[in-house]
């Protein structure tokens, strides 16, 4: 165990996998010079160790970053493509959905597409409408894609390693605000299985199911709620597809109440899939309707008082939980 920043942990994951497997490589804009203009250290030192053939600084060509990753995956390598943010990822939606996700199936299993595409999500103060989106729900809707949304440095490392070893295309969605966050990371070859949730807090009154940074915010809200005598169980899904139905259902069977907070726009967000599934399959054990709490259907504004209206905070989560417990 060592305490480290999320961005250091994911860099270590990538470096370890590149050492382990010579077919692993990475590509993206400003990868080899990124330290210059951003604060994230995700790629620091990699080009020095692995050379420019395997740590590829690309032109500003999102279609090709994604398309080349697909082509290179099919041709026997394991690319880790970085689209920097899911907002830019929309520029390469086609290559991800129509190619990466479908090739294995469409060609009857003749090929696999072992690639990882990194698409950062989340609100970062002041980045506004075009740089704050969280569209994990899109990729969950697409057959063939695995979608990973880690919340801690340890999971960032362990899940990136699992993603690189996965033979199917993985969308790896880091939250921008987490890169600088610190956490304990197990040493050695720490691999976290895809599709397994973790329980951030045990509780008996109400289950919160969340992912990415919102899982930590839910935990913060739960700790606060404990002071009012509300005992919340917090599940961090870690992977939104496949999601850990077993863990979620077990918790809901125990508490009978579910709140699904999410940073994404609530309408059509991944929380809807969770809520619909729980409502359908656990109808009889529910003591209260399944409740979602997500962002309004509004682009992210720039000014702070407006941004604060559109982003979901631990305080909002706590208030929603209280209301569910009749303590609003």
């Amino acid at each position: 165990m060592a305490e480290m920043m999320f961005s250091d942990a994911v860099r270590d994951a990538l470096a370890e996998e590149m050492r382990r497997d010579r077919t692993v490589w990475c590509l993206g804009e400003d990868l080899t010079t990124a330290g210059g203009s951003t604060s994230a250290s995700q790629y620091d030192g990699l080009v020095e160790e692995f050379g420019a053939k395997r740590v590829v600084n690309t032109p500003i060509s999102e279609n090709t970053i994604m398309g080349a990753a697909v082509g290179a995956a099919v041709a026997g390598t394991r690319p880790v493509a970085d689209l920097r943010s899911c907002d830019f990822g929309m520029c390469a939606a086609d290559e991800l959905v129509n190619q990466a996700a479908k090739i294995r199936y469409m060609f009857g299993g003749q090929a696999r597409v072992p690639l990882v595409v990194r698409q950062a999500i989340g609100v970062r103060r002041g980045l506004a409408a075009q740089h704050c989106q969280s569209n994990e729900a899109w990729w969950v809707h697409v057959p063939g894609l695995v979608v990973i949304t880690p919340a801690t440095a340890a999971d960032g490392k362990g899940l990136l390693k699992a993603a690189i070893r996965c033979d199917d295309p993985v969308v790896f969605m880091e939250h921008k605000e987490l890169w600088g966050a610190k956490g304990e990371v197990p040493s050695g070859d720490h691999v976290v299985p895809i599709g397994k949730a973790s329980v951030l807090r045990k509780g008996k009154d109400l289950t919160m199911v969340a992912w990415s940074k919102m899982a930590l915010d839910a935990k913060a809200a739960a700790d606060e709620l404990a002071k009012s005598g509300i005992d919340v169980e917090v599940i961090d899904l870690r992977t939104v597809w496949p999601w850990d139905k077993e863990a979620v259902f077990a918790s809901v069977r125990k508490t009978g109440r579910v709140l699904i907070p999410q940073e994404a726009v609530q309408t059509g967000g991944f929380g809807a899939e969770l809520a619909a599934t729980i409502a359908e399959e656990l109808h009889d054990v529910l003591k209260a309707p399944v409740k979602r709490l997500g962002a309004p259907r509004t682009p992210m504004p720039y000014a702070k008082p407006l941004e604060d209206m559109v982003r979901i905070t631990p305080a909002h989560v706590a208030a929603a939980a209280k209301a569910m417990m009749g303590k609003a």
Partner: protein
Amino acid sequence: MATKKAKSAAPAGDRANAPQRILGMFKTMCLIREFEEAAHQSYVDGFSAGSIHQSIGQEAVAVGVCTNMRPTDMIHSNHRGHGHAIAKGADVTAMMKELFGRVGGTSGGKGGSMHIADFSVGMLGANGILADGVTMGVGAAQAVSIKGEDRIVGVFVGDGTTNRGPFYEGLNWAKVYHLPLLIICEDNGYASSTVTKVITAGGGPAVRARAFDIPAVTVDGNDLLAVDQAAGELIAKIRNGEGPQFLHALTYRNKGHISRDQLKYRAPGETEEKWKTEPIGRIESWLAENGIPAAELSGARAEAKARIAAAWEAAKAAPHPDPKNAFTDIQDNGAPHHG
């Protein structure tokens, strides 16, 4: 069929003494032609479905290029991919089964015509999204470069496709990383029902490639000898480490864009006039003039017909896939399933 035929250039340089080699290519072209006729018929007869894009009239491009490739080389194709697949060595019976959606199809019936692929011969797939083959081909070539392998990648694109953004991104990228990539633009003059020239600015595909410092050669794509010659030279350069090359092949799509296309957008007589330049008749004349007996030529045509007829029968006789196969070859298909 052809009455008056355009002439083929004599093969240049070290390829001059090659009638036997050219005969082999002629046979492949005949096989493509027959396959395409059958593909169309399969649609008419209801054995296949969706969009069937024939490459009749464009056989010389597929064959002239792929002849110069090795089995380990890879190609990315587009929606009009049957010819590319056959030229690269795919089995016509498995392909026909794929069109029929049957067991034994190249993709087990999951892909159909528009997604014809045979990875065992380096044919990495026809594709329904224009220009994506370029970026994927670039990636395949980058994999080759990273692994230090001795093989090249070919990408086929249509003329209309050269107006999509990813095409240019791919050119720039291929040159920047000095990739072992041959891009072949099959310029048949049309983008679906639209005359490509009308929606294309500047001097065309080769000029565009050169703007990225990618050497580009324009050839008569209906002249097998010219395509073979140019492709051979460009591929030799790529193998020699000279980076990406571009081949612009002028050709013509003699049939509709897809099987149900009535060609209403063409001037009367255009299709018939253009038929005179179709590549199979031209190379057949050249072969006859260069010592291949007429019987061998007609025999080759007959053999192609017979092979495709056999493929047709095999496809017709092949069983339909087990419906449960719908849920294989996929990571996690969610729940619940009906049926």
